[in-house]
């Protein structure tokens, strides 16, 4: 029924106006945004641990944007093993790029370009780290 986040919010407002406030609650967060956020946090920690501070800052910028889009939901951190070296970090960046590219192709939200930007940024990181 609601194929975009905007459509969902407009639908929620309509339902609320009709007195159907319980049905209008948004109870699930966007799975693609959540996955991208967890990967961004993990890559930020990994890049920082290996001294790639500017790249870590890119990931923190992604994370801040994703957190803003997911509000009012809050996503807990997940423990993940940090990459052992630059090669492992480059591989993690490439995997994160593929994940975001897939989200760009399959998302039902309005965020195809956002996921594409994150995929492109991670691909660039992988190339310069390798």
């Amino acid at each position: 029924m609601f194929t975009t986040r905007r459509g969902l919010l407009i639908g929620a407002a309509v339902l609320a106006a009709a007195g159907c406030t319980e049905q209008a609650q948004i109870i699930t967060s966007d799975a693609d945004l959540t996955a991208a956020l967890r990967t961004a946090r993990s890559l930020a920690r990994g890049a920082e641990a290996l001294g790639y501070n500017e790249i870590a800052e890119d990931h923190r910028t992604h994370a801040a944007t994703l957190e803003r889009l997911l509000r009012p939901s809050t996503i807990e951190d997940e423990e993940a093993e940090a990459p052992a070296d630059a090669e492992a970090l480059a591989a993690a960046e490439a995997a994160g790029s593929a994940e975001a590219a897939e989200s760009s192709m399959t998302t039902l939200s309005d965020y195809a370009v956002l996921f594409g930007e994150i995929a492109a940024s991670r691909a660039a990181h992988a190339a310069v780290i390798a």
Partner: protein
Amino acid sequence: MSAVDAGLAAEYAAIFAYSAAAVRLDGDPRTLAEALESEHRSRRDTLLDHYAATGTDAPAPAPGYDVGVIADAAAAQELLTGVELNVTATWRAGVAATDPVERRLCLDMYAASAVSLARWRLAIGQAVADPWPGRPE
């Protein structure tokens, strides 16, 4: 003009600019410029294959492109940085395409162009980190 048309036009312009500017460069930037020109040619060929596969006519390149005066290596570096930014911004815009085949193609080209932009910036001593490659400021 479709997103792929726009991307192909940007790739044509990039090939022209590299052909004109690479001779002004030396050392690592020259080596990379030649490699990137080859990559732009490969992307152009992939796009032409896409047009052939879909039975549509590909836009032709312009007879020439205004690249200004390339007096020295600094001018060549500035021109090629602008070219890579333009190509990346063009493919980024294409990711909004609603057709899935077109979106996939633009997505692949966008990632490849972001990689080229980062490698070029690294070669000329600029910061490579960029959370939103090609996003208009």
